[in-house]
Structure formats: C-alpha cells, structure tokens
C-alpha cells in the first residue's frame, strides 16, 4: 500500500525493525507547523515521537545524547527560523549547542546524519511533512542505531 508523499508504507509487525526517532520541537514554530501539516492532511511516515518544549533554547545537549543513549535511531530538533524566535534568540543558542552535539557524535563514531536540527515555521506544514519524511528515509537507510546493537551484545 502506498501513500501520497515521498515514502512507502513499510511492513509492520512483531520482529520487524522500525526506526525510533525522537523529535524535540519548539511550541511556537515547529509544533505549530506540525499541527498545520495535520490540518492540511499532509502525509508523512509516523516513525517520529514529539516532545514539545517552549523554545529550542530549552534543549540541553544532554537531552539529545540521552535519547541516543536510550537507543534512539535518530533525533530531530526543530525550531523557528533565525530571526523569528518567539523568545528573540533561543534558536541561535540551540543551534550552537546542536553543532557541538554533531561534533561529539562524529568523534565517538556515531553517524551525525542521525541527528538533525531544522527550522520549520508555523506556516510551513508542507515543509514539516517533507522534513520528517526525509529524516525517516535517512534513518531507514542508516539502519538501527549502533548503540542499540552494542547493548544487545
């Protein structure tokens, strides 16, 4: 079965790996944009779980690392466009931290494509759909997180 959008609906069932993607998004832009995608019935894969914070500035680098340590296959942080932050500049500060996370991931041998920060505004429902679709496609390509695999051994 296929759905509109750049993805196919995968086979689901016991024993079949599905990516676990942790989304942490800001209330004012990306969460609102994700809601708008809903209103517009824009279809995207359901393999992401959202935690809402007021601003991406709230996101401690440790939250991202905690998600990976817990076995997330991917993490998506999404906030307002630069210059559009509801709290003036929280997203700049978040972006700085997120670059640090990416560097850290590289240095421990974790593919940094598993982590992404995007900027989706409250009016970009279609973009939200495209972003999630792309994140899910990339994670499916990369496969299960090596951390989960390592834990199994």
């Amino acid at each position, binding site marked *: *079965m*296929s*759905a509109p959008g750049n993805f196919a*609906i995968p086979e*689901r*069932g016991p024993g079949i790996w*599905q990516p*676990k993607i*942790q989304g*942490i998004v800001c*209330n*004012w*832009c990306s*969460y*609102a944009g*994700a*809601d708008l*995608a*809903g*209103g517009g*019935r*824009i*279809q*995207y*894969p*359901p*393999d992401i*779980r*959202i*935690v*809402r*914070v*007021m*601003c991406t*500035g*709230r*996101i*401690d680098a440790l*939250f991202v690392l*905690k*998600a990976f340590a*817990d*076995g*997330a296959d991917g993490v998506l942080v999404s906030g*307002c466009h630069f*210059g*559009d932050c*509801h*709290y*003036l*500049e*929280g997203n700049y*500060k*978040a972006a700085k*931290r997120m670059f640090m996370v990416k560097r850290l991931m590289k240095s421990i041998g974790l593919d940094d494509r598993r982590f992404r920060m995007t900027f989706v*505004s*409250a*009016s*970009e429902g279609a973009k939200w*759909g495209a972003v999630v679709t792309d994140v899910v496609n990339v994670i499916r390509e990369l496969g299960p997180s090596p951390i989960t695999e390592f834990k199994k051994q």
Partner: protein
Amino acid sequence: MMAEKKKATTKKTTSKKEDTKKVAPVKQEVKKQAPAAVSSTTQQGDARIGVFICHCGTNIAGSMDIEAVQESSKAIPHVAYVDNYKYMCSMPGQTVIHKAIKDHKLTGVVVAACTPRLHEPTFRTATKDGGLNPFRFEMANIRDQNSWVHMHDRVGSTDKAIDAIKIAVAKAALLQDLFPKSVPVEKAAMVVGAGVAGMQASLDLAAAGIKTYLVEADTSIGGRMSQLDKTFPTLDCSQCILTPKMVDVGRDTNIELYTYSEVHEVEGYIGNFDVTIRKKARGVMTPKEAEAKGIVGGGCNGCGDCETACPVVKPNMFEVGMKPRKAIYINHPQVVPLIYTIDFNSCVKCGICVTACGPEKRAIDLEMKDEFIKVKVGTAILATGYDIFPIEKKEEWGYKRYENVITSLEFERLICASGPTGGHLVRPSDGQTPKRVAFVLCAGSRDNTGTGKPYCSRFCCMYSLKHAHQIIEKIPGCIPYLFYMDIRSFGKMYEEFYYRIQDEGAKFIRGRVANILEDKKTKNLHVMTDDTLLDRPVDMEVDMVVLASAVQPSADTNRTRKLFGVSCSMDGWLLEAHPKLNPCGTTTAGVFLAGVCQGPKDIPDTVASAEGAASAASIPIHKGEVELEPYFATCIEEKCAGCGMCVNLCPYSALSLVEKDGRQVMQVTEAKCKGCGTCGGFCPGGAIWMNHFTTPQIVAQIDAFLLGGEQ
C-alpha cells in the same frame, strides 16, 4: 519477558523520580505563599494518572485502533484509569474527566486528542473543575500530528498514539501544582499604522476610554484608502467617507497621534509593553511644539507659503510620482495633521522656507533631530497594511518600459478629481483620452512562476470592475476590456455589481495575458492572449493597459513584526493565532492584527477586522490584569555554582547573580522571565528549574518513548 521489561522500566522511572524528590521541596517552598491547592500531593511514586482518549468522531478513530490504544494505555506505569469518548471536548466528555478525578483519586490527567494549541485551555479548565490544579494536565497529540497525517498507516499510527500517551503520562506523573501570577495591565494601547484599519481600531479603543498611541510612518494618516477614488460596489467617494474619520482621529483626545514616526524598540510583555517611538525629524514644528519652545502663537498652520517658496522639486509619491512636490510638502490638501514636512534627503537647506514662514510662526527648524519617545502600553495592534507588488518584475507586460502601461493605483490617481490630471484619464505618452482600455487582472497574483505571488490578492477583480464602470461613465464611447482568469466577486452586492458592469458594456475576455507589445509609432499596445472560452488566440490593439497588480506586505512590516515577536507566513503576511477562530490574535499575548497586514482584504473586511482587533485589545485593559503562564525559571540554589553563564544567555535580562550565604547564586526576576528555558538548557550544573518543562519531566518523556516503548 515482557513483564520483566515493564518492571525494569518502572524501576527506572521511579529512580528518576527520587532524583526529583530532592529538588521538589525547593519548589514547594517557593510556592508556599500561593493559594492552597486542592490537591497538593507531590507527584511521585504515588502518581495516579487518568488517560482519556478522544475519537474526535472519526477524525482520530478512523485512522487508528482506539481499542488497542486503550488496552496498551492501561499497562503504562502510573495509569490508574483509562477511558475513551467520542468527543472529549464536549460537555459530557469533560464530565467524564470530572467524575474520574473524584472516583479514582487521580493526581494528573492526560487527554489524547487534538493539539494543545487548540484544546489545552479547555481541558485545563476541566481538570480544575474536577478538583485538581489545572497544570496537572498534559495532552497527547494524536490527531493533528497523528491520525490526520498517517491516514493510510493504521498500525503505524496506532503505535505512535500509544507512544504519545506514554510520553504524556510520564510527564503528567511529574507535573506539579502551578499558580499563574497576575500582572496589572497598563490602561493604554498602541496601534501601528494609520490606514483605515489603524484609524478604526484607534477610534474604537479611544471610544472605549483607552488612551491610544497611533504610530504612522507616513506624514499623514489615511493610508492606501486615501489614495483611492471610488469604492466598490457602492461607488461612494473614498475620500468623502474617509476624511471625516481622519478628522475624528486627529481630534480625539484619547488618541495621541505620531505621524512620520516608527516603532523603534519594544520591551516587556502583555499588560506592560515599553515601546520606544522614533519620531523622525520633519523639520516643521506643530503649534504645540512651538509653544513648548516659547514661540507663542507659532508653529505650522498649513498655509503653504513655504511650499510656494521652496526651489526643490521632487515627485509626489502619494500621486505615485505623477505630480511634483517640493522638498517641503504635504501629501494632499486633506492631510491630518495639517503640518508640513521637510524631506531632508532632498532639502538643500537654502533657508528660503524659513524666511517665507515668517517671524511670527517660526515653524521651520532645519536642524531638527529625531526624537525618541517612550510610552507604556498594555496591548498593541499591528495594522501595517500593504504595498503594490513591483509589477515591472513581470517583464512580459512592459510596465516601466511602455509609457501607456500603468498600474491600477496610478489609474486611481488619474481618475480621481483631486489627482494630477483633475480626474481626466489620459494616456501618459501623449495626453490623449483613451478609447480602448485593457485591464489585466491577476497581474502578479495567482502566479506560480516564482516571479509573482501565489495567492489571490482578493480585491483586484472588484476594483477592476469599478474602473471599467468609471471609464464607461466618464468617457463616452470608451470600451474597457477585462482580461481575467476568474472574476471573484464574493462579497455582499458584489456579484450584482459584476452583472451591472457586464450590462453597461464592458467586455470580458477569459485568458491570462501572455505578452504586451508596443506599437512604436502610435504607442498603442497589443495585448496577446488565448481566449479560453472561444479557444482562439487574441491580439487586441488598445490605447492603454491597466495592470491590476498584486499586493504584498508593506516594506516595514518585517521589521515591525520582529519587534513585537509576531510570526509571518511564507508570503510575509503576519500570522494570526488561529486562521479561523482567532484571526485578530497572534502568538504573542497582547499583540493583535488588523487589516491587510494579516492577508489581503477589501475595505469592509479590513474595518471589520480592525473593530475585532480593537475589541480583543481592549479586553485585557478593561479586565485590569492578566494571568501569565507560570513557566518561569527558578534557581536550585544548592546546585548553583554561581558561574553566571545563564545571566548573559537570558534575552530579557531576567537573571542576575546575588550574594547569598557568602556565595554567588543566580536569582530570577519572575516578572521579566518569559519561560523560554534558554538558561535551563545551558546550565552546566542543572541548577535551573524550568517550571512545567523541568529536566526530569523532559528526560522522563524521552525515557518513556525509548525505554518504555517496547511492546
């Protein structure tokens, strides 16, 4: 195996909660003075959460297995009760929550339904009515971010809903009683932009007894509407109905008018905005300003002697550059306030105007500097309006290349009795009266080529019909040809107006104009299109072309919106809080939108939206106080190392270092904190407690998904 795993998860969550136990007492102390909570139990191991799953008719139930979601929810740690209902937001749905809180001694409520951005207030009230603190409520979004976007993946969306509930329950189990703080609201409002929207909003606010600061960038109020000749479909004269309003605004004692000014800086929050207005140097003093300088009986009285004397000639932009003005000027004779302005970009400071003004008035000050005025307001309305899309970008229509191609705004000025030609429509090339005029509708609107605007500018169809009528009325024998895609005449008496213009003899050709070519000798124009009704190509020679150009947000909109923290859509129009149910509000509490800055509107809709915005903006002012969401930061002093990193991170200067028990610790000024959490996201010692978005809560959410998510 499964049971074991579940146990393990529970253990982990509990251990996390023990962490919070150490932290929580600090919070409790802080909140001691707050009114006693109905249930003050700290949410720890004994948390009892009720989960309520909404079907939203078939909106949710149609895309997932509600039974499976309910069954799985029962197994989530801390869940004491699970129920589902067709419409949780309905009264019976809310009653289910009330009853369950009492019957099952719940300490927290999770509703899995639509989005918190829609119904969080509803269910918070329901939670409160059930006897719990309203902040003991958490929402799982299983509609807008689930059933609606995964309509063809039933298994996937069911799994996602279960996880969303797990995440919400994990947070709900750690939620604490919070008490919103009330702040007084300044009994004053600000309106930015004095077009018809800003004027109407100001008049309404002033009539409601609210001191209103009206800030306008131009030298006069009136906006776009003052440039129009007639208004559709009633054909009453735009100036005739607008100028009395302009005069009212100028006279109202509750309205403080700042023309030739802009908003320079905005600080604060709903109820207490500190706004700095930059009053640009206009080089001419009002009688009031002159009196303040000791020139009794002086100041500008609008006599115009200076203008006559001024030697510098510039195009008058109010007349779209079709009429000259001097370096010292007024836009048109009916301006409010009737005060001249010096355009310092073109003034040569020769001083002739100073002499012409005379020793009594002494109104002109060539050395005037910009002034910065600080005002305090409770709420603000943005009414920044629109500009005409630069239609020369659509090169195929030859605007600015061919003399006889004009925009509809130029047409308005040409046909207006007070315009540059005294109301005679003439060809710019030779001054002759045209006999065949083509109107190109959707010029730059509904354009997906990337050059124009994808949206419908909404009022061009109607004003083009009006233009056709004006031509037929004023120039006997002249035929208007309207090249259109669709005629969108959607308003009251609009369709009837369309029929009337058809009967009057206007010609309608359905086809988007592909190209316009100029006859070099006669300066006539050839309009090329495909008549899609007759299915044949058209090459029509006309004397003049009027482009019904698209509209776009006014030039300063982007700067102004950023000052007030208002978002915009992809096209730059300011973003309303909800497109249907809150079209005047924004996501910044206390800031409202009026008129076209929110999206293209005709005059009736603009005035209606202005009245709506004025009413919305007056509510907090009349209430006298507003509740702020208690999401502010607090410092856990025993963890704070006093490094001061957070102090510099805070965009609102809400944090400072203070000396306590012989060491430096951070202190939060609650009134300044807006709860973004930027400090909390950074603090290396984890010493900042962000209410309602605490680190233990967020970590519990992540754990609930990733560790408790395995079925």
